[in-house]
């Protein structure tokens, strides 16, 4: 999705993320999505604010909670829903599901089920860009939980050492499944990154303008050869860690905390700012919301209409180069 500084477009994109997740939750409820879904709801300002500062040819790596990043980087909802429904028309031909959606043509180098694992890949991609004298930037998204993964801390060091065009974006939603960040990450998130020599900022991740401004500064620096930087976006996820058919939701946070979080809602916040700054035309906001709804309804229908992969293709795509009787099947006919 293209670079934009237009707040109205940010609003549209954030609504797309939120309503996409509402539909995904309904598809889990109805049993049409077989695996787990980690909803991005509440964190929309982070993905939209950062990706609006990126060009189409910049790349991101994403997380288990990745739908928002993929949509914000231009992922097509219909191919994402098709993936969630395990269809051949999905981004990964139904082989990946929610946690692995990728679209290389849009610089989406994949969501990842292993916390922190995308960060070194983003560094390697950034190095590849630089060796070809391309001014592209790599942005690994990760959560506060990843701040305790060795591979992420190693990646900070690599990025500084090689002065890579990388912008590390930490979505600090304050909680890793049920463990609080305060407890698990002594000393805080941004100071830890700063300790590696990364220019580090901490912004209100419920404020899309603040996120976009910080991302724009960091991306410009990276693109101009100024090296990597780190942005902590303080945010809240509204949902439990994940949802899956038949699974019991575990919410460890208090109702009062959740109430307070919703009062900082990033979408309502931007809508209120737009109202004060320019005023909404009669019906303008409803029209945008309904357009998004219509687009997503069509996307779900596209996904449902897709065919499931043929059982005969179970061994496909493991390797670019195959050999006789390789990969092996699990039993001889």
């Amino acid at each position, binding site marked *: 999705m293209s670079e934009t500084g237009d707040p109205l477009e940010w609003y549209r994109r954030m609504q797309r993320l939120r309503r996409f997740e509402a539909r995904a939750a309904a598809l889990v409820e109805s049993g049409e999505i077989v695996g787990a879904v980690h909803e991005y709801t509440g964190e929309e300002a982070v993905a939209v604010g950062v990706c609006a500062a990126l060009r189409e040819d910049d*790349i991101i*790596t994403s997380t288990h909670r990745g739908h928002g990043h993929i949509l914000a980087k231009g992922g097509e909802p219909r191919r994402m829903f098709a993936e969630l429904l395990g269809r051949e028309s*999905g*981004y*990964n*031909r*139904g*082989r*990946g599901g929610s946690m*692995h959606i*990728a*679209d*290389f043509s849009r610089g989406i*180098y*994949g969501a*990842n089920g*292993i916390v922190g*694992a995308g*960060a*070194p*890949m*983003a*560094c*390697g*991609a*950034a*190095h*590849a*860009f*630089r*060796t*070809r004298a391309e001014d592209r930037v*790599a942005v690994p998204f990760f959560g506060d939980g990843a701040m305790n993964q*060795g*591979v992420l801390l*190693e*990646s900070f*060091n*690599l990025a500084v*050492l*090689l002065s890579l065009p990388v912008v590390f974006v930490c979505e600090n939603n304050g909680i890793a499944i049920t463990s609080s960040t305060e407890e698990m990450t002594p000393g805080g998130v941004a100071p830890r990154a700063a300790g590696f020599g990364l220019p580090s900022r901490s912004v209100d991740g419920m404020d899309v303008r603040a996120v976009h401004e910080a991302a724009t500064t960091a991306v410009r620096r990276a693109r101009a050869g100024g090296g990597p930087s780190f942005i902590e976006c303080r945010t809240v996820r509204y949902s439990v860690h994940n949802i899956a058919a038949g699974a019991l939701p575990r919410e460890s946070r208090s109702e009062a905390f959740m109430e307070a979080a919703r009062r900082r809602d990033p979408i309502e916040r931007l809508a209120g700012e737009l109202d004060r700054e320019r005023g909404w035309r009669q019906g303008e906001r409803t029209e945008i919301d309904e357009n998004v709804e219509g687009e997503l309804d069509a996307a779900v229908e596209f996904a449902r209409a897709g065919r499931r992969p043929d059982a005969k293709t179970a061994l*496909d*795509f*493991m*390797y*670019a*180069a195959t*050999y*006789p*009787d*390789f*990969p092996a099947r699990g039993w*001889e006919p």
Partner: protein
Amino acid sequence: MRTLTYVAALNEALHQAMAEDDSVMVLGENIRNGVRAETRGLDERFAPGRVLDMPISEAAFTGFANGAAMAGLRPVVEFQVASLIFPAFDQIVNQAAKLRLMLGGQGRLPVTFFLMGAGAGGGRAGQHSDNPYPFLMHAGVKTVIPATPEDAKGLLLAAIFEDDPVALVAPANLLGEESEVPEEAYRTPLAHGVRRREGRDVTICAVGHLVPAALAAAERLASAGMEAEVWDPRSLLPFDKAGLAASVAKTGRLVVADDSGRTCGFAAEVSSLMAERCFEFLKAPIKRVTRADVTISYSTPIEAAALPGDEEIEGAVRAVMGHTEPAPGSTPVHG
């Protein structure tokens, strides 16, 4: 033909690959001032971004290689000692090996995991003595293990230009071996085993440094009237099933010699494969000669007692030939 050492052959392969294709890069620890000579001269000849010294961060620099590959490069990631893949295991088995299928065929991961100094011997003790190839094979990582300088060069070039992740395992005990190596660039194909010695009575499928051990055993067996065929798979995954099956169908007997763990090891896999495919040709039970299922010790006698060598291979061949049982005490830990 001129001769090269195994290490010099690896070095020549890296030089030729980098000269042939600008997207090839080499990264790892101490690449510029390597403790061995396999990366010698690369930094003087090629652009700095293509020869990268990395900090001691195996997980991150392996992930870095994966990402660079996704963005169009062909990285060779060196691990100075084979066991150093363990800190990087997530990036190898959970990322590189799985990404292509998981992403529905999007992207390309032409990464070479270059495992130097694999195996035991010389008091390297528990954490520097592994031959970790069964782990890689189990995870679906294409894995090759050259036994000669000629194959070291050809398989490294093949690994680099394969469009999938490939692990190349270079046994520590072979690095100083010297033999004829063609000067031009050539690629030794994966999934093609090679017969190192012809024989009619028994097939010895031997891996890595056990190839010369098997050849030594075969010479002694020949003087006792037993003709062993020595077959070197070279490529463990994909494996030349038809090539080995043809040899076993001819000889009717099989010994598999593999210096990795016995349980769920490479020899176990090859044995069951051949039992399934060649049962009607077998005149004797298949025998495995492997490492004991223990951590390798520092002290010389107990290090040696846990490792397979030419004597154990010879004993196993005599056993399957039905001439004699292995001498008491000669293979106490190999069963």
